């Protein structure tokens, strides 16, 4: 059985974890925004910005981690714009989000053309290298999958733990969870709804930027157009799949990535000779829809998601 061979190969699981990494960052970012009550549809564009900013910084000679910082900062900048429009101005979050995606994508492509006018083949950078963790990476399959990755992948998992800790174990996280459920509860306890929501959108957008940077700095080592390719939209579905919980969202990202890794490998088997490759490309999305339907039945949506808060209005 060819599928079985794939499933027991270490390289398959390593690929799944690698594919999942950018999704983990961006999904956590979206999760933070939505937990605070703001749907951030700017995610797709913000990932493009992050991918470009990180890559450009490194291409211009900056340290890799400075590049990650630049990607985060660029994401936060567009997040701030989103936050200003959607929180104090209370504009429709759908319109603002899609606008941010269009603006961020277009201005990135523009910046790319301005910075590299003559280039036809995007230059490559010295990206993050795999950093096997001693001892742990020697475990069969699991070691290859989890402990022989690039530092950014490790950071993705650490980020998931940090987000979960902050959300559930600190007063700040409590306030974020409350403001997405009932902003009046936060207002009546003397906290600022505006500050909490804007902060969540800015921080969440920063993570989306890092998610984008993973593509250029830890996967493809270069920047090209359309490279984000709908990953942002997948992350929005993953937040629902994860029922707005960081741990479940992480699992969702891994599951989707596993399907994606599987379909790439299936294309190269004897099956791939008979079936059009587009069918394989569809597979992770179809399975995601299926999983979404099954998993999100009893999910608790933040009650104030997408509801702008105006002080003094009931």
């Amino acid at each position, binding site marked *: 059985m060819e599928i079985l061979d794939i499933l027991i190969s270490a390289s398959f699981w390593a690929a799944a974890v690698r594919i999942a990494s950018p999704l983990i960052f961006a999904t956590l970012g979206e999760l933070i925004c939505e937990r605070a009550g703001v749907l951030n549809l700017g995610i797709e564009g913000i990932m493009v910005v992050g991918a470009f900013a990180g890559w450009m910084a490194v291409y211009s000679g900056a340290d890799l981690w400075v590049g990650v910082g630049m990607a985060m900062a660029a994401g936060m900048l567009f997040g701030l714009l989103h936050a200003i429009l959607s929180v104090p101005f209370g504009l429709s979050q759908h319109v603002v989000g899609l606008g941010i995606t269009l603006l961020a994508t277009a201005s990135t492509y523009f910046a790319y053309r301005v910075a590299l006018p003559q280039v036809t083949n995007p230059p490559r950078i010295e990206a993050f290298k795999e950093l096997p963790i001693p001892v742990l990476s020697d475990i069969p399959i699991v070691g290859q999958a989890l402990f022989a990755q690039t530092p950014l992948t490790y950071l993705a998992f650490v980020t998931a733990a940090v987000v979960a800790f902050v959300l559930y*174990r600190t*007063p700040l996280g409590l306030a974020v969870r409350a403001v997405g459920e009932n902003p009046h509860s936060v207002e009546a*306890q*003397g906290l600022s709804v505006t500050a909490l929501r804007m902060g969540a959108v800015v921080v969440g957008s920063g993570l989306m930027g890092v998610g984008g940077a993973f593509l250029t700095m830890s996967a493809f080592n270069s920047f090209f157009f359309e490279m984000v390719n709908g990953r942002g939209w997948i992350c929005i579905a993953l937040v629902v799949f994860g029922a707005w919980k960081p741990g479940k969202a992480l699992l969702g990202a891994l599951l989707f990535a596993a399907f994606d890794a599987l379909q790439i490998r299936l294309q190269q088997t004897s099956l791939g000779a008979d079936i059009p490759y587009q069918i394989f490309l569809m597979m992770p999305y179809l399975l995601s829809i299926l999983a979404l339907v099954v998993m999100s039945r009893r999910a608790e949506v933040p009650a104030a998601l997408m509801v702008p808060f105006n002080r*003094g209005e009931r």
Partner: protein
Amino acid sequence: MPTDPGARAVLRLRNITKRFGPLTANDAITFDLHEGEVIALLGENGAGKTTLMNILFGHYMADAGDIEVFGHALPPGNPRAALEAGVGMVHQHFTLADNLSVLDNIILGTEPLWRLGTGRAAAWARIEQLSRDFGLAVHPEAKAGALSVGERQRVEILKALYRDARILILDEPTAVLTPQETDDLFATLRKAVARGLSIIFISHKMHEVLAISSRVLVLRHGKLVGEAATADTDRHQLAHLMVGSEIVAPEVGGAAPGAVLLRMREVSTTPVGNAVGLRALSLDLRAGQITGLAGVSGNGQAALADLIAGETVPDSGVFEVAGEGVGAWTPRAALDARIGRIPEDRHRTGTISDFTLSENAVLEAYEKEPFSRRGWFDWTAVDRHTRAIIERYDVRCPGPDARIRLLSGGNMQKLILGRALEAEPKIILAVQPVRGLDIGAVTYVQNRLIEARDAGAAVLLISEDLDEILTLADVIHVISEGRLSPAFARGTKTPAELGVWMAGQGFGEYSHAA
């Protein structure tokens, strides 16, 4: 509780003025609250009570005026400053996050945000202590979303006490409570006063104001129109101050019952979730008669109302309207059978909040002439119709194009009443038609129902207020666990006797006899 005139003022309001566009919600309001005092702020809906308290708590900025708490000026528009000054507010619309536990709701905002971990153990002990001291039983780990209304209110009070509030504002705290829960609340408030807290209690229910307060302030149209020590005043005087004119209780003349317009025999419906279904219920609604349905909430009133409104169908039994069995029974069929509906929840099922008055006024007939002609909407006709309702039913509003959510409960109910009655219904289903309304609106709605009866409509009045049933109904049924008592004619049963039926006794012998 007598007020000691020498007690120091813990709160001073000076010339508080607030305008919303052309409306002056608060007009130069000045008063003091003394230590250990319970002030009742009395006024009709829309008199400006909630606005005033929202200014005090910092939700709104006043256009003019100053607030002093314990001798220090309170910065305006800042709930945090109000909380830190010792002002706690129990909002009319509860401010709990349903996804959080009781404990989390209480400690929210009480700790510095940038701290690792939360002091849950200490908070837990303190909440338990407060629960015991003030008689506010609630489990700290329970999820707020799973709490009953009474429990939610206890959490709101705990939130204030946890922050060491010295001044407690309660905005219409009893509107959602049962009489028993109201008594518990009053017991808690008395304990709070005994510990030196000062309380502002907002209400429009006279007997509660008289029961709990030491001083009454009356607001009308944004102005402070009267002030009295509770001991020196009475219901009559306060009602006069509140409304600005004499209240005339509805006069119910003799009924002239006619034909049976709605007939139910042994009708049963399936219970939905925890709700009670109807159990072999038989009922006649006669023209020119108000049939009152008494009972403790949740005993099948909703099932009966839904059935008559066309929202559910009977599982078994005979259900006839105007002498004929109904075919496909839907809300549309109910409207076509000339059943006028005043739903229980005006916000959720009675109106669409973000629609205009006009749109709401034609919700039940928008596709019929004259509002629609050959599939096209005639806004002129809709506007004319809405203006007629506004005029005839005294709906106070900015105009037909205003969103209905801006209206007070009473005015919203008048529009719903107008919508139902203008269609000249033969059967009127009135579910809790005056709940939450001020005195003026209550009298108004009740008089209109009596008029409709006199004009030959069959009225079914479903209410949890026994006084209302006893005043208005020509015949009374009691509903208990989906079963219906026999019909009692007006004046044949005392409240105590009805209470026995409401408690579910008497049905056994009755069904054997029948």
